[in-house]
């Protein structure tokens, strides 16, 4: 642990801290929303520790809350989390403990704290020791802040009874939208996302809950058919590889 503080400069640590605060606030809304949708407090609490990948947890809770099958919800969540596979491929030996190598439990924990934020911070560092330190600082910070926020949010949510009077039902889609807006700045992704949203809306009156969201994936065809502009990365996309350039809110796309 101490080597993290020695290895990273203060600015990177400050950025990591800010990101963790943002994750904490998303966790607050997550816990409050889950409880407001009728789940007991232990559910978001357990998910936040065991899954530790915010977007998929929102998706799971959203699909089950609207009456969808929990298994379908889990599969949808896994699809969202499949991005962790290329993360692992992209990071050379980073989940090992900082300093000492080869401790088994540390490697298992290091694997668990792989998320959007820790990977982004790691990639922004110039060498392996600093990459490891940034990865661990951010990973452990998120591991503390995400469940912490979820539990506190759940407690607050339990205290509020008429959720629709406070507009809490609008918070869920707003949170997700805030998290993906960075990706939507890419015109092709935006087009596919709008098409997917339209498909889901059209299907909603006819299909059982949960399925319309999965059906939206048909919009991927829009991206498969037109390979085109590989080189033109959107400005929004570049932001994801440069932590600290933007305030934390912009970075926590699919927190954590």
């Amino acid at each position, binding site marked *: 642990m101490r080597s993290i503080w020695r290895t990273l400069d203060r600015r990177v640590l400050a950025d990591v801290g800010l990101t963790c605060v*943002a994750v904490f*606030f998303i966790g607050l*809304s997550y816990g409050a929303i889950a409880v407001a949708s009728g789940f*007991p407090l232990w559910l978001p609490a357990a*998910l936040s520790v065991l*899954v*530790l990948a915010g977007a998929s*947890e*929102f*998706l799971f809770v959203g699909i*089950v809350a*609207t009456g969808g099958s*929990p*298994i379908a*919800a*889990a599969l*949808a969540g*896994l*699809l*969202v*989390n*499949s*991005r962790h*596979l*290329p*993360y*692992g*491929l*992209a990071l050379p030996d980073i*989940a090992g403990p900082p300093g000492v190598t080869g401790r088994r439990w540390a490697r298992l924990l290091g*694997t*668990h704290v*792989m998320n959007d934020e820790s990977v982004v911070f790691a990639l922004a560092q110039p060498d392996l020791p600093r990459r490891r330190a940034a990865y661990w600082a951010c990973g452990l910070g998120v591991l503390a802040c995400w469940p912490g926020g979820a539990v506190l949010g759940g407690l607050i949510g339990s205290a509020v009874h008429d959720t*629709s009077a*406070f*507009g809490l*039902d*609008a*918070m869920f*889609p*707003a949170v*997700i*939208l*805030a998290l*993906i*807006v960075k*990706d939507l700045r890419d015109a092709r*992704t935006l087009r*596919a996302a709008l098409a997917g*949203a*339209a498909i*889901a*809306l059209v299907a909603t009156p006819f299909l059982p809950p949960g399925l319309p969201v999965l*059906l939206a*994936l048909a919009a*991927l065809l829009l991206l498969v058919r037109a390979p085109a502009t590989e080189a033109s990365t959107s400005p929004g996309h570049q932001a994801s590889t440069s932590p600290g350039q933007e*305030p*934390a*809110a912009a970075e926590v796309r*699919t927190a954590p």
Partner: protein
Amino acid sequence: MKDSALVVAGMATLSAGTYAFRLSGQALRARITFPPRAAKLLEAAAVILLAALVATTALTEGHGFSGFARPAGVLVAGVLAWRKAPFLVVVLAAALVTALLRILGVS
């Protein structure tokens, strides 16, 4: 939550599967090269799923329309997010606009 056992099974599937993704990328690293195009498609798939979730949770309730107050709040949040407002502002604006509209009698 009607069927707790099924919900727990779903939670276990999601947790175990996510850990497997985190682990397998590192395990495979030495052996294969993942085409960047496939990685991009996976990322786009996630965004499409989440966008569909935004649309359905904002506009529908059960099999029907949710009323105007909620999508109006989400729309305001979307505009704020697009203009890079802080996360907290975005989320609170959604709740505030929706609550105000309901106070004014818009369902």
